[in-house]
């Protein structure tokens, strides 16, 4: 969302933090994501199936976690179209119990590089859930005004 504090290329410096955020994930979010993305793997909605294949419970789609962490960047920049590159490694699962409080994903970011020619910045993201790092090498490259 556009805010008065929207960053610009000239005002952002390497080392700047991106304000952290905590995102709530409930079973209903996974069902909705399954429908929107077309990924209906039952490990993301059926506790019976998930536990039968050795998982602790239903787990979030890795791509749901990637999208959620990416929101930290797009909300900061105020323009989802400014993301020119986004990459993650899936390092751990987000386990989502069947409870109103669901699970949470805590995301924070730091500006780690600037490209003066492209007027882009590199943002390194950290995402954790239940104390485990769920994304590794998570980097977004965004073009700033």
């Amino acid at each position, binding site marked *: *969302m556009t805010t008065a504090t929207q960053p610009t290329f000239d005002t952002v410096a390497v080392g700047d933090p991106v304000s952290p955020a905590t995102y709530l994930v409930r079973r209903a979010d996974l069902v909705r*994501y399954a*429908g929107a*993305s*077309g990924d209906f793997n039952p490990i993301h909605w059926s506790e019976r199936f998930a536990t039968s294949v050795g998982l602790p419970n239903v787990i979030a789609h890795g791509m749901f976690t990637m*999208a959620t962490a*990416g929101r930290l960047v797009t909300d900061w920049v105020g323009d989802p179209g400014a993301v020119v590159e*986004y*990459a993650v490694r*899936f390092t751990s699962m987000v386990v989502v119990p069947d409870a109103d409080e669901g699970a949470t994903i805590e995301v924070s970011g730091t500006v780690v590089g600037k490209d003066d020619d492209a007027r882009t910045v590199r943002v390194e993201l950290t995402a954790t859930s239940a104390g485990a790092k769920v994304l590794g090498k998570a980097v977004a490259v965004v073009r700033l005004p």
Partner: protein
Amino acid sequence: MAVNPDIVGREYPPIPVYEVGREKIREFAEAINSPDPVHRDPEAARAKGYPDVIASPTFAVIIAQRADARIIADPDSGIDYSRVVHGEQRFVHHRPIVAGDRLVATPHVDSVDARGRHAMVTTRVEIADENGEPVTTARSTIVVRDAGEAA
């Protein structure tokens, strides 16, 4: 079953044209709880300089996974889908995906590596418009459990 290393370098035929709809863009944005109006309101998108509503940065996964399914479905690849775990994902956006786009997605196999008992398969889906202008490059690494050379 081991993944066939001979698939490295292979390009598969593109999947049928994917037509990007406004409502699909909105549905995906809602599914990732993104409040941004550029996914919903064409006027808000135009005010930002886009011709119509634009897709979220990871929307292309819908198209990329359909294209990757070509590789997984190829009996010659030796990939057992029930053993597949998503390892890494990367998008390079040459421009945002916009409502009304008619996209052509072509799957490629970039590498197959044994990692202990597992096989790591990196695919690249080149997503372009119908004139061949690049839109998004989606790279995905899948881990096929118990499918490495030592399996």
